[in-house]
């Protein structure tokens, strides 16, 4: 191969004390599909923002076509031939296809935008949509087609590198197919595609080469051919899978929670599952499928519109009656996916956050025994390995991983038997993730029943006993993890088809 058109060497990015990128190396060649792989929080998004000009790197060298490349704003990136396609599309729904494609680069004559319909048509034809009229309003198009308009915009602007950030996360499998064909076309025209995804099967299918990021560093790069998915995961997590997903023997017992037809105001529509003592049930699905809402309804955080939920303790969680306080009393507990706004009170201390849900245990006649309160919290912080100066420090002084351990400590302190964990490892480093997986296994071994929601399939496959998939508010039957293939899971998650 010739020289790389994009070359990154030793790129660092710091946000205050946070070192988001610690030496990223990346080489991208013309006409290749290059996958950038990494766990949530590995630095993929930051890297992409550096490339697009949204962030300036703190240190390091970037060259584009052998010239130093230092974009200071997104338009610089675009002028230099680097186009971004974000996960959240950035089209103006009320403008036409042509207006969207030409936005910001329209030719002008005396202040009036000049039509460039020919170039737009050419790009649409290239992308396999000669039938689309450039005058169509973008808001009326399906999501998959809208994404093509974004790609067309990149082509018309003369992009040499197109960066796609999780492009398939909201596409059906048919649309994903079409996208892959488009990517092949782009590659044929000598355009480099930087493809970011954590759907490893897809990545393996579409990419020629890969670069793996872990905790802000490049930790592997090579040809996609000949590499297996377990090998990729091991590189991503930096340890063997057995180490990443520690197993603790746990026996699965009788049913402790039986839900049927659970419905919320909008989502879920119809969700039912059985949870057994000592079982770890994973719930997979795309963002917006209604997974969080299902657990939030059951815990009384969102209104439950219908359905039933029976506990082994004979308590029933009735629609309109259930509140978080009653759910906690009935032996449920909930770990929020939103640590900052909901999971933890950021201005309160580690101690206060740890004991907040079971404060009465350390209180007599309404007065808190402050010594006991602190001793209890210190105990959990030590047991869960929370790294902090003092447990009286505000929770906001901790890293994400340590904050999450405090949040889990609160659940353990309350000692409910059924735990709902909503994205328990979102935004935390690999080391903390592994520790949290171990804690979850230990909880199951202690007879707790756990439901985990995650958008990251390998983690569910690594830590859960059983798995169910949600599609548009409907939950599949749960099956033992080995009885699902990744293909089946993705298929249900994107189409709702059982097979």
């Amino acid at each position, binding site marked *: 191969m010739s020289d790389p058109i994009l070359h990154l060497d030793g790129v660092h990015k710091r946000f*205050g*004390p946070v070192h988001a990128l610690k030496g990223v190396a990346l080489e991208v060649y013309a006409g290749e599909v290059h996958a950038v792989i990494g766990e949530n929080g590995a630095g993929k998004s930051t890297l992409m923002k550096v490339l697009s000009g949204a962030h300036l790197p703190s240190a390091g060298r970037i060259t584009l076509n052998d010239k130093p490349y230092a974009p200071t704003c997104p338009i610089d990136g675009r002028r230099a031939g680097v186009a971004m396609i974000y996960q959240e599309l950035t089209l103006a729904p009320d403008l036409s296809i042509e207006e969207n494609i030409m936005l910001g680069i329209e030719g002008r004559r005396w202040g009036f935008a000049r039509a460039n319909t020919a170039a737009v048509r050419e790009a649409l034809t290239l992308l396999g949509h000669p039938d689309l009229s450039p005058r169509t309003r973008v808001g009326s198009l399906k999501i998959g087609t809208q994404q093509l308009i974004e790609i067309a915009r990149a082509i018309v602007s003369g992009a040499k590198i197109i960066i796609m950030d999780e492009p398939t996360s909201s596409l059906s499998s048919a649309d994903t197919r079409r996208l892959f064909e488009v990517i092949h076309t782009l590659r044929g025209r000598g355009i480099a595609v930087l493809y970011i995804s954590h759907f490893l099967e897809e990545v393996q299918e579409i990419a020629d080469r890969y670069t793996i990021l872990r905790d802000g560093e490049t930790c592997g790069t090579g040809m996609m051919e000949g590499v297996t998915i377990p090998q990729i995961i091991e590189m991503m997590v930096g340890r063997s899978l057995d180490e990443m997903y520690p197993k603790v023997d746990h026996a699965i017992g009788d049913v402790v929670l039986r839900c049927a037809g659970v419905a919320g105001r909008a989502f879920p529509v119809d969700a039912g599952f059985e949870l057994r003592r000592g079982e770890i049930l994973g719930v997979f699905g795309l963002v917006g499928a209604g997974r969080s809402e299902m657990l939030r309804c059951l815990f009384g*955080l969102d209104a439950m519109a219908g359905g039933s939920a029976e506990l082994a303790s004979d308590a029933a969680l009735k629609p309109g009656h259930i*509140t*978080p*306080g009653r*759910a*906690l*009393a009935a032996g449920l507990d*909930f770990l*929020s996916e*939103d640590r900052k*706004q*909901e*999971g*933890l*009170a*950021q*201005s*309160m201390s580690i101690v*206060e*956050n740890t004991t*907040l*849900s079971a*404060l*009465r245990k350390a*209180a007599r006649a*309404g*007065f*808190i025994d*402050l010594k006991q309160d602190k001793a209890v919290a210190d105990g959990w912080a030590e047991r869960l390995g929370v790294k902090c*100066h003092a447990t009286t420090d*505000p929770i*906001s*002084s901790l890293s994400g991983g340590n904050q999450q351990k405090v949040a889990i400590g*609160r659940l353990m302190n309350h000692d409910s038997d059924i735990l709902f964990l909503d994205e328990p490892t979102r935004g935390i480093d690999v080391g903390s993730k592994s520790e949290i997986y171990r804690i979850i296994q230990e909880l199951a071994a202690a007879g707790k029943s756990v439901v985990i929601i995650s958008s990251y399939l390998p983690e569910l496959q690594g830590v859960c006993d059983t798995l169910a998939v949600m599609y548009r508010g409907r939950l599949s039957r749960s099956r033992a993890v080995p009885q699902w293939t990744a293909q089946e899971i993705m298929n249900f998650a994107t189409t709702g088809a059982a097979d």
Partner: protein
Amino acid sequence: MKIKPFLYRVLPFVGLIFVVLVSLLAIQINDPSGQDVANFVSLDNIRTVLIQTVVVGLAALGMTLVIISAGIDLSVGSQIALATVVFAVVVNGGSVTAPDVDRASWLMVGLAVAAAVGVCALCGFFNGYISSKFRIVPFIVTLGTMLIFRGVAKWIAGGEAVRTPPNAAQGFMDYDVPVLGIGVGFYLLIAAIVVTAVLLRRTVLGRYIYAIGSSENTARLCGIAVENQKVLIYVLCGVFTGLAGVMQYAFLSSGNPTIAVGLELNIIAAVVIGGGSLSGGSGSAMGTFIGALIMSILGSTCTMLGAETYVQEITIGTIVIVAVGIDRLKHLERFKA
């Protein structure tokens, strides 16, 4: 590491000392003979300043609970006026005209205190219930009730001050009292500070108040019945305000429905100067007391300097902004660290 939180905790004290020093300096410059400074630090003046802190101080302690929980109560000025009117009417045996007696009995005074406090607690219940159950922000609810309670006070009083026969309560706010040394009102304020401090720092309710103000979602997640707790917080605020109203009556010796207009802003200012944040989650009883004290010291200084009231207003306004500015700095540092 540990020095900064400590500094922030003593910040209101530092502010207090600063205000006292600046006051002394200004008075000395204004009167180089030193006579005014001597007057300023005389026992009489100190007692006057302390007793003048009582009304705002008591109400601000209640407001502290509300503000820590990220709420606000704009109706406290009107509640104080209503309390003076209710007190006067009850002490009169249910009439807006004073009965023809030499002195009202202790029993009547006791009933009047209970009635004034009770009415304000009811006002607080109304504020808390309406804003919790109907999800109307407390700013709007209490803006409405500020007018409603004021109107009710005028209605009961018949539009005029309610005169009362001499009674024991009228001595609550004297600054020169035999044996006690200072009026009962000041001791009540001290007791209220202790109660509030213990409530906030040592009780489950206090922890819940901080939790609700720090993050209402987290509080709900942890099983706290946020709506009910909020109602309780406004009721407690009403109780403190009712006591402040009784002390206001003691100052006036009559029930006056037009008193304490705009006083809610001074009360909120005291909380804010004392480290309370309107976004919730911070504030303390001692800080609030110091905030109220700073304001009465400034008042006394301005009197001593013979300055117009506008000087006092401008100074207090500036201090509020500076206090909040320092508070913001604290938050910025927290997120940097």
